[in-house]
Each structure stands twice: as C-alpha cells, then as structure tokens.
C-alpha cells in the first residue's frame, strides 16, 4: 500500500515539477539555489532529476543559461527565455483550469 502511495505521489509531483521550475526561473538561479528555493517552498527535488530537466528545458528553448564566476567558482545560471515566458503563461492558465476542475470534482 505504501509503495503504491509513494509511486502515485511521485507521479503527481513529477507532473507539477516543470511548472514549478519555470515559475522559479522568472528570476535567475543556478542549480543549487534553484533546488533550495523549491525545497523551501515545499517542492523538494532530487538533484539527479533537476539538472537533466534544466538541460532538457534549455534544449527545448524554454530556458537560457550562462556560465559566470561567483564566489571563486564557475556557475551556470538559468533564466526563462522569451519562449519560456510564453509557455509559462499558458501553463499557468492550464494549471488554473485544472485546479478549478479538481476543486469542483472534490466538492461533489
């Protein structure tokens, strides 16, 4: 039973992760600070999941990245691209719609 719940819980969270990441990247972050920001807001994400996701979103043209030196280390900073901003807006609208539908379903 616990295993079933865990699997379903992960699936549910996985579905929301892209939206959470894109939303956070309205402001520039590098991987570590992004992960901390998500964790502080109740959306912990595995580093093994986050970094490949960031690469994938960048390949899809939704993110832009830049290497910069900070605190004596080279860090890769990500932020939303123009296309990413457009997609995020649409995803947020979709999220509102799903949320609304779910609330109506749960109210029954």
């Amino acid at each position, binding site marked *: 039973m616990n295993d079933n719940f865990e699997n379903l819980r992960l699936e549910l969270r996985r579905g929301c992760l892209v939206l959470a990441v894109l939303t956070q990247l309205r402001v520039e972050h590098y*991987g*570590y600070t992004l992960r901390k920001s998500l964790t502080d807001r109740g959306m912990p994400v595995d*580093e*093994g999941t986050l*970094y490949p996701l960031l*690469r994938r979103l960048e390949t899809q043209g939704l993110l832009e990245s830049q*290497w910069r030196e900070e605190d*004596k*280390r080279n*860090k890769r900073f990500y932020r939303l691209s123009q296309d990413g901003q457009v997609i995020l807006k649409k995803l947020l609208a979709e999220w509102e719609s799903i949320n609304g539908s779910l609330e109506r379903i749960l109210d029954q």
Partner: protein
Amino acid sequence: METWADVSPGKITDTGYMAMEILDRYLQAVRRYLPRRRQDDILEELSVDILAQMEDMEQGLGRSLTEEERVALIKHYGHPMVVATRYMPQHQLIGPSVFPYYWFTLLRGLGLAGVAYVVANGAVWVTGNATGEQTVQQIFHLPSVLVQVAAWITLVFAALEWGTQKSDVKGHLFGDWDPRLLPAVQKEVDRRRWWSGVAELISLLVAMVWWLAVPHFPVLMFGPAVARFAAWPVRLFSGWALVYWTMSALMVVQVIVRAVTLARPASRRVSKALQLAFKVMGLGILAMLLKVRDFLVVTGGGAGAHLETTVMQVNHGLWVALRIVQVLVILDIIWESWKLAVMLIRPEDGKPAGSNSLCGLMW
C-alpha cells in the same frame, strides 16, 4: 575551520588526503558514461552543486565534514552510471508509444519462428536426413534461434523509437484510423470449440508427420507385411512423386492455416469456407489418383502369373476404395456447401450477410 569553500584542486588537507580526490573520482566515473560533447559542461555543473551542498552542511554543523559524511553525500547523489544516464536524450530503448506494437510483433514473431523451426526440422527428421545426435542438437538450438529473432525485432523497434524521437511522427504511428473499419463483434470463443481445434491441429500434425515418414519407414503403412512386400518385384506408378508432394504441400498448408485460426479465431463462416476449400483440393488430388488404374506396377520379367494376378486385384481394390472415398467426399462437399450457403444468407451478429471480409475476420 577549513571548508569546501577554501578547497582548491590538489590541496592537501591535514589528513594528508587529496581533499578533492573523492569528488574527482566520482566526477571521473560519471564522465565515462556521459555524451562526449557535453562532458565538461555537465561535470562542472555537478561539481559546483556537490561542493555547494557540502558547504551548506559544514555551515550547518559548524565544522568540516568527515570522510564518511562526504561519502554519504556523494552516495546520495547517485551511482555515476545512473546520474549520467539521466542526461541521455533517449531514456528508453523502446518508449511507451512504440512499445505496444513492439510487444505484439515480438510475441507473434517468436510464435511463428518457433513453429517454422519445428516444422522445418521435423521435415528433415522424418525424411531421415538427420542423425539422432543432429536432431538433439537442433532441439537445443531452438532457444538461440528464438533469442536471435527477439534481438532483431528489438533492434528494429529501437531504431523506430529513435526515429520517432528525431522526427515528429510520435503519437501518429498508426495515423488516422476509423472505428467503423474494425472487425465485427464476435461471440466469445467457445472453449470446447477451441480445444476441439487444438485436437484437430494435433491430429493434422501427426498425420503430416506420418505421411512424410512413410516413404522412409514403409512399416508405418504396411505394418509387418512390409517385409513380404519388399520382396515383390513391384513399384509404385510413375506419377506417384507428384501426387505425394502435392498431398504433402496440402497438409502443410492445412496445418499452418489451422494454427493461425487457433491463434486468431475466425468467424464460423470463414472456418467453414476454409475447410471446404481444403476438401475440394483433396478431391482434386483424388481425381489425379483415380486417373491411374495401375497403382502398383510389376517390374522385370520372370514375375509369376500369381503375382501379376495379385497385383491386379490390389490395384482394383485400391481403385474401388478410392472411388468410394471420392463419392463420400463429394457428398460431404455438397453438404458442407449447403451449410455454408445457408450461413452466408443468414446474417451473422446482426450484420448483413457478406459484410465481413476474410482478412478482417482472420486478423
């Protein structure tokens, strides 16, 4: 307190241990599995993240991390191969959109390959062209044949998966389809009919094996009397080979069709039509045989009048027997044709008669 923030590559700590060594070893291991073009980029990012985590932990603890704590943190990050695989563009050999077609093809491919292998090697065995040792070797060779078939099918579908990821055909593998073109609803296959079909297939197989074995083991047809017949100076009529191989081909086709209809049950109309077709073909072979009056021919001179008389009687007996069989088969064909005609006129499952195509019902 010396922390990871102060660490630079190659610096020796108080413990005499290369502070970055364990991290470097980990990154080196991850590098081995990464795509070559993006190795440096990805590893630099990973290195920054792991170091940042270590710094955070040290700030929280107010002291340097022990080696066990560093090892635990890196271990939590994940095995190098697993971490690297997440950066691969294609995460599965065959993805969820292609998998159903792959699975369908694999099961049917293995089934057909198995049947074809058994039939082909069975034919070699019954014709006496394989020794016992070779036969045993062929039996143990079957799994490796099936593995090869599975490997080729998997390779083709992995290439298809790669192709669909590169192009835009994902989700459109079957394109537009029309539910109206799907086969008509069929009643649940009667279990008894299915088992009866299995029994029929086994009988057909046994009959085919017997038929193919008879030329090499005449005792299967003539029993103990074969020793006596062997001494007679007689042979079969000259067109016997043609009749024999035509009959063999018909049997093989029947076995294959029966096996296929067992795996994919066809409508009763289709089954009846196929059975009728085979009977008509059998009737054709009978007609070929009946043109021959002398099935057995006395060879050489010096055969006694007694032998010639016996051979004449045997030929006549065979001819009469075949004639009777022919009449019975004709009557059977007439009766089955009548039943099929009635079936065709009467609607099947509420649909107009003749609306189900052979291919749609079979497949």
